[in-house]
């Protein structure tokens, strides 16, 4: 009887281990398959479209002009703009919620930030078209409100919840003994936050920032609705106040109509590959930074 029960436990454990292992291997397999597919569809573009045409400054695919340079700079502008907005605001909010806010404020703020994360990007786009873009046009006296700045503000807004919740978690894992020790040494609350708590949570905060930036690069719907999608070349600091076209919006709006296997189709996949490499790079950097910090702290503790 007892041995039978043990065998069935063994079986159960075996099956569960198998399921978990399969799930783990499957996600590896999917990533590999997706990368292979992306590379297979994208690589021919490099042979069919000459490199100087590919890195040209004019994107007008129906006439065979495949210059992706304005799309690259467009995505870059939006990403930098949104990061400049989201990183400081997100970090300050996280510090406030985790370190300063009284419990009742915390209870209101945390769910609110999570609701913000749940706003669909198309709704953000509507807000952008109907409220933000006319406001920016009148405030800065711009020709049009559909600009990189509009996109940056909205995407910054979309990235803030990610940054807040991940870095708030990181701050929470800092042992309270650190804070107590710092305060006991006579530092002010601000000095403790700035000098002890935030540096201790650094790896989590950097992960939060990278996740937020990743969200910004990949975001499609909002930018397609509010940035005007004009493939213009950047011209100094004014670029942020001009319409731009991002890589994501280009793929989203053009993929539906291209013939499979055509030059245009493969160039769109090539753009997808660039996006993929971008977000891969961000992930690797985030991973490197966070794992390095753990090692150093382990060294300190040992």
């Amino acid at each position, binding site marked *: 009887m007892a041995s039978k029960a043990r065998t069935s436990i063994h079986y159960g454990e075996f099956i569960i281990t198998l399921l978990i292992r399969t799930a783990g291997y499957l996600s590896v397999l999917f990533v590999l398959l997706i990368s292979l597919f992306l590379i297979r569809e994208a690589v021919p573009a490099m042979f069919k479209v000459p490199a100087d045409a590919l890195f040209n400054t004019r994107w007008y695919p129906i006439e065979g002009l495949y210059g992706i340079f304005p799309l690259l700079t467009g995505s870059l502008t939006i990403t930098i703009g949104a990061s400049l907005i989201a990183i400081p605001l997100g970090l300050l909010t996280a510090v406030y919620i985790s370190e300063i806010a009284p419990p009742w404020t915390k209870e209101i703020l945390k769910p609110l930030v999570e609701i913000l994360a749940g706003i669909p990007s198309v709704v953000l786009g509507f807000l952008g078209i109907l409220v933000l873009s006319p406001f920016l046009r009148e405030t800065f006296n711009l*020709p049009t409100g559909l600009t990189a700045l509009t996109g940056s503000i909205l995407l910054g807004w979309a990235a803030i919840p990610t940054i807040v919740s991940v870095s708030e978690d990181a701050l929470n894992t800092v042992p309270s003994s650190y804070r107590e020790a710092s305060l006991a040494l006579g530092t002010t609350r601000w000095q403790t936050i700035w000098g002890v708590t935030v540096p201790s949570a650094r790896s989590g905060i950097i992960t939060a920032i990278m996740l937020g930036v990743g969200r910004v690069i990949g975001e499609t719907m909002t930018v397609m609705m509010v940035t005007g999608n004009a493939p213009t070349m950047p011209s100094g600091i004014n670029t942020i106040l001009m319409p731009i076209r991002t890589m994501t919006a280009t793929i989203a709006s053009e993929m539906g109509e291209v013939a499979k296997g055509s030059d245009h189709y493969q160039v769109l996949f090539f753009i997808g590959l660039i996006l993929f490499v971008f977000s891969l790079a961000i992930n690797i950097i985030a991973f490197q930074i966070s794992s390095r910090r753990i090692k150093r702290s382990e060294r300190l503790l040992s």
Partner: protein
Amino acid sequence: MVNLALVWAEKYQEENAGVRISVTGGGSGTGLASLVNGTVDIANASRSIKTEEKEQLEQAGHQAVEYVVASDAIAVIVNPENPVQNLTLEEISRIYKGEINNWAELGGENRPIVRLSRETNSGTHVYFLEEVIRLGSKEDKNIFAPDTLLLPSSEGIITEVRDNPNAIGYDGLGYVTPDVKVIAVAKDRSLPYVKPTIQTVINGTYPISRDLYMYTNESPSQAVQDYLAWIYGPEAQEIVSDLGFVPVSTKQSANGE
């Protein structure tokens, strides 16, 4: 026009079990050539039949019968605050090529011009490029100015034009709402400026419009006649306006038949 033909065929087959209509794309020339070869019953065309095509059909022993089944008008729109009322086709072309950049050059206020267009995958975009920017010339290789805003939807264009006094846009007449100003367009300076309405599209005075045709030979089968009669009916013509085209009036359909 293939979209319209597809939706019509789909709807008609839904209502008439037993009738099968297959629609093939490829362009107006393909359709008319197939009619000459006798492989199709109806040829859809977004231009009228050429003399050569008519002769070919006559050599094959048939007469072409033309039906105007819908029209396609593209309205040029600006903000109601913009004092500019009239533009010639050439002026619109120069605006979109990036040669005219301020409304003052067109008798308006001293404001920059913000050009709006549909995305490049839109049929309207291609039509506008060929017939307005290039003024119908095949040799003309001009394209939209790079700072033309490409908006993903007709609604996006309408919203921006409604809110922005600098903007100029174009859109199928079916999408235009009363809170934007429709520009009266003249083919050239010697001709009168005309606003797009169902009337001016039907009588051909509005320059940025084209008729959409169906062609059959002189003795279409009963099934084809029934289908054409249905196309001129209220339901099919409602599909026409739903897709942003200009429906033909009932009077026109009587003439057509």
